[in-house]
């Protein structure tokens, strides 16, 4: 059964009702269990669990330390292209938006890599808009070959690929896939993704499975928080992560919690996700999936990021620039979203150290 089929089954359940029926006892049981079931996960996501957040946090802290140690992995995003053929109403790169588009040429990629690697970053996440025309697979392959001279871990956040294409990238040393479903609510998904291949909800939802079959080493999934009702979105994110962990036991599954930061337009997130809810969602994922990585990007402020250390986070971006070519050329340009934490890699490292954790720059060796 694919996750889409599992998803269909869960869609028939009145999840709001499940959340509403949760009692304090259900939450306490979930906190004290070693191995949580879906019902326990739902209990931790309920409004009721919000009152017991400190106890959930203590457990999550203990579980994370045992499983991952007192370390936070750092990575940096590298935007290769802002060309995009999709029309996603919330995104700064949406095709209808009039802006100067850019795709880096090999010399420019090299320059960006030099600047980033000088900060000590060894894990790079390459991003493009979704345009097979401007950034075909051959372009991605060439870019990876350049970047592998500078970095020991290379992840991709690009348009969804076929299993064969994922295999090709794995074979040249791509370790990680980042692919957010954006919205797990299929009806709203259609509303936000107006044109382009991304409109195909099912194809996107099944992409992590194709990457898993291609033996991708890590897969990060997530919902863009703000597009739909947060509790349910995280519920489905957790279900998908659990599904992937079961089916691709060799692959490390991570969950990201991006909160919508609009760029270049008037789109306002219809659902507001508070800091408290964000923390509750993160803790619920940690207890439900003790072995899953948890990522927090520079979309969040440095103050919040600092407070999230110890609550289950295992990976953070640092010194991020979301403007194409922006590391080597500091000129202003249009990024995909607004960055809140503008601290340098060095400042981020110091923040992690001040929290009693070790910033880890290198966590894989290209074989």
């Amino acid at each position, binding site marked *: 059964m694919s996750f889409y089929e599992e998803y269909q089954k869960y869609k028939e359940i009145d999840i709001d009702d499940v959340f509403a029926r949760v009692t304090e006892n259900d939450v306490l049981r979930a906190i004290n269990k070693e191995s949580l079931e879906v019902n326990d996960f739902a209990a931790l996501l309920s409004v009721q669990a919000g009152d017991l957040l400190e106890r959930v946090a203590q457990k999550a802290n203990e579980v994370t330390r*045992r499983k991952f*140690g007192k370390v936070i992995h750092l990575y940096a995003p590298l935007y290769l292209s802002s060309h995009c053929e999709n029309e996603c109403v919330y995104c700064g790169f949406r095709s209808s938006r009039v802006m100067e588009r850019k795709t880096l040429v090999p010399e420019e990629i090299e320059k960006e890599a030099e600047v980033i690697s000088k900060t000590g970053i060894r894990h790079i996440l390459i991003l493009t808009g979704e345009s097979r025309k401007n950034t075909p697979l051959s372009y991605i392959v060439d870019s990876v070959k350049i970047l592998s001279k500078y970095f020991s871990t290379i992840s991709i956040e690009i348009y969804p690929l076929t299993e064969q294409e994922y295999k090709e990238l794995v074979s040249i040393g791509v370790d990680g896939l980042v692919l957010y479903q954006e919205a797990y609510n299929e009806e709203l998904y259609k509303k936000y993704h107006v044109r382009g291949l991304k409109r195909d909800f099912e194809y996107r939802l099944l992409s992590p499975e194709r990457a898993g079959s291609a033996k991708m080493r890590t897969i990060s999934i997530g919902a863009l928080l703000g597009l739909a009702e947060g509790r349910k979105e995280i519920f489905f994110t957790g279900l998908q992560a659990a599904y992937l962990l079961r089916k691709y036991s060799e692959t490390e599954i991570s969950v990201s919690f991006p909160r919508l930061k609009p760029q270049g337009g008037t789109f306002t997130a219809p659902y507001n996700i508070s800091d408290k809810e964000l923390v509750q969602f993160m803790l619920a994922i940690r207890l439900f999936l003790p072995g899953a990585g948890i990522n927090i990007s520079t979309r969040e402020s440095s103050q919040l990021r600092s407070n999230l250390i110890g609550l289950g986070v295992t990976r953070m971006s640092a010194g991020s620039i979301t403007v194409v070519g922006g590391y080597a050329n500091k000129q202003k340009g249009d990024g995909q979203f607004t960055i809140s934490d503008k601290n340098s890699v060095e400042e981020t490292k110091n923040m992690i150290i001040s929290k009693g954790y070790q910033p880890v720059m*290198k966590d894989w060796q290209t074989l």
Partner: protein
Amino acid sequence: MEDQFKIAGQLINSRFLLGTGKFSSYAIMRDSLESSQAHIVTVALRRVDLGQKNENILDYIPKNCITMTNTSGARNAEEAIRIARLARKMGCGNWIKIEVIPDTKYLLPDNAETIKATEALAKEGFLVMPYMNPDLMDARRLVNAGAVSVMPLGAPIGTNKGLKTQEMIRILIEEIDIPVIVDAGLGKPSHAAEAMELGADAVLVNTAVAVAVDPVIMAQAFSQAVIAGRLAYLAGPGAVKEEAAASSPLTGFLR
């Protein structure tokens, strides 16, 4: 009482081996290694960074230690072999701990792939110490493949649950002629002492030390527990008795 501990013919000064992952800083890791008095320490190659910019974990390992690279991250024999070869090329020496873990949930090792990797690497001159699920037949296969010790797990990595596989480990200790080093799952010094009392040649710990509130003191506590457990084993503990042993025997009159 002479009680030498040798692996591959080499005298090892401590029966306590320490891993270097999960520490909150390299400085605390170094201080813990020193207080542990460990002679063999394991380092994940994936964390070794020989670039100019970042700190190099190898600089924080006391000079008198043997650094044994582990193949953390390997999902099959082929990856473990490639990591071992890279480690040697990067100057990390011949000691290699094979970890083949194709399971991100329980972090359990794959014995079959581990045997394959052990065989290939032993032929290339590595001193191979395989991490394994404690199975007697597989341990024998590892011996035949050229391992210099076997490292059965006490409980899954990072669980701190103690010697859950005790019965299977006891069998390995009885039947396997190369050193049996209990690795993974030991959460407290008393667990380490228990493994040593059972007759294990050594133990390897990482999580329980690294994430303790005071790792430096915890390393020392484990070190002393290992010594105590070993001494108890050598001293020959009295058998556990189900019945009372009266000091005034009831059948004494029959003499």
